[in-house]
């Protein structure tokens, strides 16, 4: 009887031990699977990057950056595309950043809790979820035909600014929200007005976070293709827009805003769509340029945010 009790006890123990073993094994297996998944994602990113660089390698010459697109693949370059991208981004930056920061400041610092603020907030979060091609259709109907801006750099810049706006607003709000109330109270206590508090305290302290959002938004704008195609950007541009700086008074020239243009991702799309392999090499080289630019910008933004998070202790 006693003997029996003992064996059944040890049997139970064995069962429990094997159960624990099984569950620990499951734990181990899952950790392995998780690491495998993450490793494969990282490797995918690497393959993507290496593939572009290796495919496009033969075209990494100075000529590639200083030539216009051409019917002959080996003479074709991305001069008009990168200048177009730079000018479009300039417009986007000038429009989206002040507007986005102002909207973010209003929503965090000024807005009273009422239906208007709710409406604005719902709209901002909804806009972030609207597919980019819809912005292209908006721009086609509104900027190109209703406002008569045509298929110009100004239209493309405004379109991408609309796309970037929610990103800037959200980044501004998040970094403003991280500033403790007592900073504002201290400023109010010495007689500062609301705007003085915002300008001299809130904005300087949230500057890094806003900059992070702006850089991420700009990186997205560089690669954005669909809305720019939708407004009818041309794919073959063998001339440059008028220079923004002139030698005559007033030294600035805004004719370039109305010029036809192409941008880097459209140039790449155009070359992918051609059947000849030589153009695919050009596309890969352009892709490598785009991905280097966006990765550098995103990497910088991520580092910046990391630094801010580590440095600031209120």
């Amino acid at each position, binding site marked *: 009887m006693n003997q029996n009790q003992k064996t059944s006890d040890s049997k139970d123990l064995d069962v429990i031990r094997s159960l624990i073993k099984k569950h620990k094994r499951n734990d181990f297996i899952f950790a392995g699977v998780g690491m495998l*998944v993450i490793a494969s994602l990282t490797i995918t990113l690497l393959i993507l990057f290496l593939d572009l660089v290796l495919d496009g390698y033969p075209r990494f010459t100075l000529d590639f950056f200083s030539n216009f697109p051409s019917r002959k693949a080996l003479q074709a370059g991305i001069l008009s595309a990168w200048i177009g991208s730079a000018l479009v981004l300039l417009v986007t930056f000038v429009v989206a950043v002040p507007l986005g920061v102002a909207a973010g400041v209003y929503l965090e610092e000024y807005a009273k809790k009422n239906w208007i603020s709710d409406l604005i907030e719902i709209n901002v979060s909804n806009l972030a*979820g609207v597919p980019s091609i819809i*912005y292209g259709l*908006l721009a*086609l*109907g509104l900027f190109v035909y209703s406002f008569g801006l045509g298929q110009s750099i100004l239209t493309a810049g405004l379109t991408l600014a609309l796309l970037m706006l929610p990103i800037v607003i959200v980044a501004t709000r998040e970094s403003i929200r991280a500033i403790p109330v007592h900073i504002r109270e201290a400023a109010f206590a010495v007689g500062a*007005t609301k*705007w003085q508090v915002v300008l001299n305290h809130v904005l300087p302290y949230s500057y890094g976070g806003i900059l992070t959002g702006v850089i991420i938004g700009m990186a997205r704008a560089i690669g954005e293709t669909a809305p720019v195609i*939708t407004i009818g950007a041309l794919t073959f541009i063998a001339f440059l827009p008028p220079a923004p700086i002139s030698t005559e008074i007033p030294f600035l020239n805004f004719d370039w805003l109305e010029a036809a243009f192409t941008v880097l991702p459209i140039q790449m799309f155009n070359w992918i769509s051609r059947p000849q392999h030589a153009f695919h090499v050009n596309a890969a080289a352009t892709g490598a340029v785009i991905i280097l630019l966006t990765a550098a910008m*995103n990497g910088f933004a991520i580092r910046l945010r990391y630094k801010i998070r580590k440095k600031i202790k209120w």
Partner: protein
Amino acid sequence: MPQSSISPRLARSLKRNVIERIIEVGLFSSAVVAVFITTAIVYVLVTEAIPFFQHVSIYDFLTDTVWTPNYSIKHYGISALVAGTITTTMVALVVAIPLGTLTAIYLSEFASHKVRETIKPILELLVGVPTVVFGYFALMLVTPFLQTIYPDLTTFNMLGPGIVMGIMIVPYIASVSEDAMRAVPMSMREGAYAMGATRFQTAIKVIAPAATSGIVASYILAISRAVGETMIVAIAAGQQPNFTFNPVESAATITAYIVSVALGDLEHGTVGYQSIFAAGLTLLVMTLVLNIIGHWVRKRYAERY
């Protein structure tokens, strides 16, 4: 003496107040731009789609399964395009949901602080890759690779771009789900560990159920990204509308159709031009419904601790 010393001060404070008001109005109008954009989107799509629906009946638009705006016998059956959108989205989800969920569970419950801080930036870089580059990847790398396994696959198909789209949306699922899981209070984990649960058991039986609303919301966000994705499918899935749910065939999605029309020269005011607005309206309604469901799920099933 008092009168003369107070009035400039009053004047200054009045000026100050006026400036403050002007600034506030300026900031307010910037914020209202968001409302203006939404209104403009709906306005433009609806006003351009109305003449289209005077030409094509809504019944035909919804029930016809052929979309041939460029042929002599014109058909405008949106379901031909919606089928392409649904098929590519499904392929993407089959890839992204398991990978994204696993990544989220691993990062939230298994990874050490250091691993998490290294992996999350990599995921963010993946989000930052422009979609036109992903399209190149689908056409030049993934489809040829799939052709070695399945030789009958055509150059343009929905499988390759669908898979690439799946890889693209993994980070969205992973980061939103991970945030939801990390928001589950530590005490619940500690309770499970105290009962002798392993990490895996805790993750599956305690954390995942508690974070369901966030996880489901991340899936819906991913679907809405996939539905609106344009360049990958425009490059690698072909731009020929085709009513099929078979991923190895080529077909156009709603977005790819809009791109293919925009690339050609379509006169302002023609039915073909208006058709892209009708297609865009359909797309907007689809993503709007998804966003509303996502919002509702998060509100309705959000756990409060």
